């Protein structure tokens, strides 16, 4: 059933008892042409675009938990394409373009809200770096505006412009950046994929990847062996140990990133604002909660929880920006496990094993990338070669030195 205000009203008369399930709960078949491992945002988007753009419908997504149980449901919901490195900017801009038409495309309101992303800077050197990035964005056809201190003050009136330890000197604004209701992205892609015949297999954990003569032939799961000609891995923080089932070793460390939400209050912040003298980002959701986060805890972790030192640091930065939020209470904190790559940029590529494809290394950037990641991964799987947009996200770039290191932080994943 197509979602619309008319279907909503029609269903109101029947007490909403006639809505069909958003997706089926099929039993696994013995064989699929293609299997995507990971029913998070990227895996579901990949399935959706494989079905929609490439006609691949003999397709299953296998997910060890529930759909969207990965980082797509535990992030700070920010979308943007304000990247510096050419390999990133084009890709993330394509992602933003897909976001802009996504809801109409998959007929699900994900509340894509282009409220603007403002990256603050606090020194002349940061202003120059922001200008460099803004100019790179403009060369890529991406919107970017360099704001001075007064423009920032007018735009975000609650910002502390007087007493901060590192005073705000201005900001780089991407007006088209914003936020998206994160769960809805998973659900929208899942429903869209399901409607095109994709089997979404929940509570189906991959325990092995079967390879014969250098070719993938299927996956072992907790619901039995499922054969396949092609297998795409989209396992985020769990990429290393899933890839290890096929004998691959990755340039990935898994780290925990915490995020926070405050009690809901009437509107106090219209944009997404990021701090420049540390790592902090905040926006206010449509429900009224302030959603914010900061740095990784810093150590490798597969546990979806963090510790107090980072909680303190994150909140300190929050009140550096907005001292009026001091009395606001946070209600929830959670942790996601991040696939931090060695240069801070993702990998969407083939692997040395025929028919096995890899999508990982999203660091904190995974959510905003969801549409383009799925789109490019679908292309890469369908055509057995990368699309122009993900051509830079190669697995062998570390061997050649073609690293894509936005921050220049080097091979220290917890600094990206």
């Amino acid at each position: 059933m197509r979602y619309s205000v008319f279907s909503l009203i029609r269903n109101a008369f029947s007490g909403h008892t006639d809505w069909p399930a958003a997706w089926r709960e099929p039993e696994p078949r013995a064989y699929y042409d293609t299997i995507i491992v990971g029913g998070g945002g990227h895996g579901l988007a990949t399935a959706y675009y494989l079905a929609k753009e490439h006609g691949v419908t003999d397709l299953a997504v296998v997910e060890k938990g529930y759909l969207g149980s990965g980082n797509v449901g535990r992030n700070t919901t920010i979308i943007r394409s304000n990247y510096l490195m050419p390999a990133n900017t084009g890709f993330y801009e394509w992602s933003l373009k897909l976001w802009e038409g996504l809801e109409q495309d998959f007929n699900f309101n994900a509340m894509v809200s282009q409220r603007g992303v403002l990256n603050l800077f606090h020194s002349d050197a940061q202003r120059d770096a922001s200008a460099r990035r803004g100019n790179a964005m403009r060369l890529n056809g991406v919107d970017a505006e360099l704001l001075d201190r007064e423009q920032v003050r007018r735009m975000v009136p609650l910002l502390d412009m007087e007493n901060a330890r590192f005073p705000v000197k201005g900001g780089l604004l991407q007006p088209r950046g914003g936020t998206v209701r994160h769960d809805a992205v998973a659900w929208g892609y899942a429903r869209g994929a399901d409607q095109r015949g994709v089997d979404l297999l929940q509570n189906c954990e991959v325990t092995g990847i079967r390879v014969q003569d250098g070719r993938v032939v299927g996956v072992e799961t907790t619901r039995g062996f499922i054969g396949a000609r092609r297998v795409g891995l989209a396992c985020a923080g769990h990429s290393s140990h899933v890839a290890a089932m096929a004998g691959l070793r990755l340039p990935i460390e898994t780290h925990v990133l915490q995020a926070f939400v405050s009690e809901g209050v009437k509107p106090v912040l219209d944009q997404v604002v990021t701090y420049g003298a540390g790592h902090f980002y905040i926006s206010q959701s449509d429900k009224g909660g302030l959603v914010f986060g900061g740095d990784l805890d810093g150590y490798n972790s597969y546990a979806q929880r963090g510790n107090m030192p980072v909680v303190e640091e994150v909140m300190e930065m929050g009140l550096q920006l907005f001292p009026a939020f001091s009395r606001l209470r946070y209600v929830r904190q959670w942790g996601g496990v991040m696939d931090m790559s060695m240069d801070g940029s993702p990998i969407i590529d083939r692997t040395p094993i025929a028919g096995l494809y890899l999508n990982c290394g999203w660091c904190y950037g995974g959510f905003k990338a969801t549409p383009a990641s799925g789109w490019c991964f679908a292309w890469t799987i369908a055509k057995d070669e990368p699309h122009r947009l993900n051509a830079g996200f190669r697995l062998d770039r570390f061997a050649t030195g073609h690293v894509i290191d936005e921050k220049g932080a080097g091979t220290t994943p917890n600094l990206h």
Partner: protein
Amino acid sequence: MRIPCPYCGERGNEEFLYLGSAVLERPAPDASAEAWVDYVHMRDNPRGPGAEFMQHVQGCRAWLIVRRDTLTHAILSVAPARAARGGGA
């Protein structure tokens, strides 16, 4: 997290700097390019027990090899890296 530093006793993890898997052997200067790329860029990234480098940067400044379970955060052992490399603690 509390990390039992062999020199300073049990301290909070905010005093420590984390630096990835404890790979002790740096390849020889003339080792293959693959060996070097592997050393610098590739990680086992264990899900469960693993060894990692941490420096007690706000304490004795010793570089430590911390064996820790990445699923539970349980600390299994801590030893100075120098001792592990035969350099004497």
